[in-house]
């Protein structure tokens, strides 16, 4: 049998979808989808990720436009913050009887 039409393989790009669940919250990544262009990506994202009032605002961005760090926990990219305990409030000993600090 002939291979099936594969026109979308090089065609519809992948988009990442971000939903703001309600006012006051950040947009959060919820998943991805394929669409031929930005507008269709937005419409598809609405139909796919907000069928039950999950959001009040949507972002879509082409996946290939995202710059990412390497994902691993052992990634040396995050090493600079690893040894700076003095950035945390609990690093400092303050007597119990000092109020409001």
């Amino acid at each position, binding site marked *: *049998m002939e291979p*099936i039409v594969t*026109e979308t393989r090089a065609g519809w790009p992948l988009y990442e979808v971000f939903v703001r669940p309600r006012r006051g919250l950040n947009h959060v990544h919820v998943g991805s989808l*394929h669409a031929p262009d930005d507008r269709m990506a937005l419409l598809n994202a609405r139909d796919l990720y907000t069928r039950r009032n999950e959001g009040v605002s949507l972002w879509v961005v082409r996946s290939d436009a995202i710059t990412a760090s390497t*994902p*691993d926990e052992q*990634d040396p990219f995050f090493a600079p913050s690893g040894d700076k305990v003095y950035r945390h409030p609990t690093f400092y000993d303050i007597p119990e009887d000092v109020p409001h600090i």
Partner: protein
Amino acid sequence: MTATEATGLAEPGLEAHFDEVIAAEQRIEPRDWMPDAYRATLIRQIAQHAHSEIIGMQPEGNWLTRAPSLRRKAILLAKAQDEAGHGLYLYAAAETLGIDRSELTEKLISGRQKYSSIFNYPTLTFADVGVIGWLVDGAAICNQVPLCRCSYGPYARAMVRICKEESFHQRQGYELLMTLMRGTEAQRRMVQDAVDRWWWPSLMMFGPPDGDSPNSAQSMAWRIKRHSNDDLRQRFVDMTVPQAEHLGVTLPDPALRWNEGRGSWDFGEPDWSELKQVIKGQGPCNEQRVERRRAAHEDGAWVREAALAYAQKRRAERGADRD
């Protein structure tokens, strides 16, 4: 940069790190190093799951134009739309493993990847819509809730979304059946007939018995799977028996009886040869299901092409404007 270069570890170190992440109940994410067999297992399982959602629209879609009321029709449409959504969440999860969705579609319609055997049975009456919601989606929920804690992050997250929506599916089915059971004698018979036909195939949804499920041990070690097929089947039976009593239907299993010692229901052995036949393609609707999916895919090709051509034209126009 690949993960291998980033961490600077040789493969044994990577594998040890992978094992540690799994053992610590943390999640593996798309760009992490993972054993090839873990990746292949996930692609196979997620693809099969996605295909099941997509093919699963057909048995119920059979009743969309003949739903007995506008209310039932709107509910059934919403449910079919959810199934499409579930398929897409899952295809997106599979794609994070480096496979293309169009390749998965191709594998489905050329018969190289499977979907759940349950969808190869026909929906003969409208009561089947209710029984599918109650039993088939009920069994799916039993299978899927533990998958929300699957070790592969994108799959687990897709399952969280899916499980929330499946609850609507099961409840609408049960409510539909309660309505029929309050109706005429003929309607009650229709429900019982549907239960008689769907009960055993629903039990088969959990897969072959543990002794005959060669991949289970590895999947459990990888925390893809959390419970054995037989454990999940038992859990489903225990959940369903009281629901059947409440509904007033009889589950078609003479061996079904409460076992005080185990605190569970004993039940009969499904006909595993039937499951094998259906998986091999000899079920009542296998050909029809795949053919319809193929036709939808091929008939939709011009839409995909037109949308792409339009997008390219718009991009070219915008490029010309900027010059």
